[in-house]
C-alpha cells in the first residue's frame, strides 16, 4: 500500500475504544490519522493542521456531528466528511441533520467499505481543491491581463 497518496484522516467519536482500534487499523494501512474524542477537540485540531477526510460520529455529547462537520468545513473548506451513525439508515440520519456530507455510513461499519469511502472522499477533495485552484489561477491571469491592458 505504499503507492497510495498520503491521506490525512481526522477521526471524531466520543467512543474512545472505537477510535483506538480504528486508528490502529488505518495507521497500519498507511493513513495519517489524528484521533479526537469530541467535536470541540476536532475543531481545535483542524485549526492546527490540514486534513483531507474527517470521519465524524453523528451523535456526541456537546457539539454533535452535524455541528462539528459544519465548523470543520468553515476552517477547511475542502475537507470531506464521512458521517457515522448508529441509526438504521441514511434517511434517518438525513432527517436528524440536513448538512451535506460526502457519505453517511451506518454503525457498525464494514471496515473495507470505510477504507474505500475514505479513498473516494480524498479523491473528491483533490478534485474540488484542484478546480478551485485552477479558477483562482485563471482569475489571477485575468486580473494580470486586465492590469497589463490597462
Amino acid at each position, binding site marked *: 500500500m505504499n503507492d497510495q497518496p498520503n491521506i490525512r484522516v481526522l477521526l471524531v467519536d466520543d467512543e474512545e475504544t472505537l477510535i483506538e*482500534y480504528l486508528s490502529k487499523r488505518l495507521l497500519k494501512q498507511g493513513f495519517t490519522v489524528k484521533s479526537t474524542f469530541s467535536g470541540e477537540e476536532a475543531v481545535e485540531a483542524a485549526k492546527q493542521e490540514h486534513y483531507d477526510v474527517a470521519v465524524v460520529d453523528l451523535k456526541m455529547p456537546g457539539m454533535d456531528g452535524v455541528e462539528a462537520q459544519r465548523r470543520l468545513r468553515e476552517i477547511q473548506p475542502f475537507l470531506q466528511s464521512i458521517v457515522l451513525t448508529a441509526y438504521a439508515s441514511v434517511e434517518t440520519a438525513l432527517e436528524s441533520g440536513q448538512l451535506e456530507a460526502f457519505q453517511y455510513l451506518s454503525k457498525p461499519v464494514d471496515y473495507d467499505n470505510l477504507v474505500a469511502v475514505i479513498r473516494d472522499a480524498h479523491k473528491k477533495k483533490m478534485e474540488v481543491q484542484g478546480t478551485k485552484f485552477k479558477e483562482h489561477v485563471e482569475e489571477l491571469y485575468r486580473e494580470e491581463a486586465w492590469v497589463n491592458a490597462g
Partner: protein
Amino acid sequence: MTYAKSTESNSSLLAELKKVTQELASHKIELHQTRAYLRCILQNCTELIFATDAEGVVVSFSKGGEKVLGYAFEKVVGRPVKTLAQDPESFGPVIDTCQQEGCALALEVPFRHKEGKTVYCNVSLMDLTNREGQRVGTVGICQDITRRKKLQEDLIQVDRLAEIGRIAAGVAHEINNPLAVINEASGWAGEVVSDARGLSSDERRELEEAVKKISAHTMRCSNITHKLLAFARKSAPTKREFDIHEVLKETIDFLTPELKHTSIEIDFNFAGGPLSVNSDPRLLEQVFVNFITNAIHAVLEKAEDEKRIEIQTLKTNSEIEISVKDNGVGIPEEHQVKIFDLFYSTKPPGKGTGLGLSICQNIVRKLEGDITLESKVGVGTTFTIRIPIS
C-alpha cells in the same frame, strides 16, 4: 210494564254489547298494530333477538339473528338456545340468573357462527311472563360486537407495536455503538494474529477462526438492530407510480442465488399487461422478498419432489392483490395467530429474527393495505397482500 222494562233492559244490554264489540274491535286493531310493529322490529333490526319457551327452546328468531349467526329461522327454532353459544355450559348460568332475577346481562358472550367462526355478542335477557305472572319464556337481545372488538384489539395491537418499536429503536441505537467497537477490535485482533510470529499453525488457525466468528456474529447482531430500527422508522413511505410486475420480477432476480441449487419451480400467474400502482416500490419489494423467502423455506422443509411456488396478481376496482402460494409444510393453526407478532419465530436460533412478518405487516399497513393468510399443515400456505391502487 214488565215488557217495557224488559225492552229497556234489552236495549241497555244491546248498548253494552255494542260498546264491548267496539272496544274489542279497537283492541283487535291495536293488537294487530302492535304485532305489525313487533314484526317490523324483528325483521329490520340488525340485532339477534330471540324468544324461548319456559324450557329454553327457541320459538322466535329475528332476521338480524339470521345474519349474525348465519342460520335460517327454521334451523334455530326448536333448538335449546344455549346450543347457539360457543360454550353452551357457560351460557347456562346466564339463563339461570335471568330465571332468578327476571333479567340478566352478559358481555362478550362467544356464539358459534354457522361457518364455525366465533361471534361475540353483548347479551341482555329478560323473562317473559303471562298475565298471572308466571314465567312462560325468555326474550334475549344480542348485539354483535365482533367487529368493534376486533377493531379495539387491532388498535391496542397497533399501540403496543408502536411502543415496542420505539423502545426497540432506542435499544438498537444504543447497541450499535458497542457493536461498532467489537467490530473494530476484532478486526484489529485479526490483523495482529495474521502478523504474529511464533504461533504454531494450529494456534494461528484457532485464533483466526475465533476472530472470524466474532466478526460474523457482530454482523448478525447488527443485522437485527438495523432491521429493528427500520421497523420503527417513522418516515412516511415515498409513493410513486410503477408496475407491480416489474418489482416482482426484480424480487425473483434478487432471490435467484437462493433458488440456484434447489428444484423449486416458480409459476407466475400475472394479470394481463402491466399492473400500475401508486405506492412505495422499495417497501413492497422488502415485503415480497420476505414472503417469497418464507415460501422457499416452507417448500424446502417438506420432503416432496414437486416444490412449487405460485405468484399471482389480480386487479379489482380499487385494489391490487398479490398472492404468494406454496405447497410447503404449512403453518399450524395455533401459530397462525401469532405469526405477525414481533419476535415470534418458529425457526431455530440464528435462522430467523422473528421480525420479518411484523415488519411486512407494518409496511403494508403504512401503505394502507392488508395481509391475509391461509394455511394448512402438509398442504401449503398462501399469503395475500392487498394494496390500494392509488
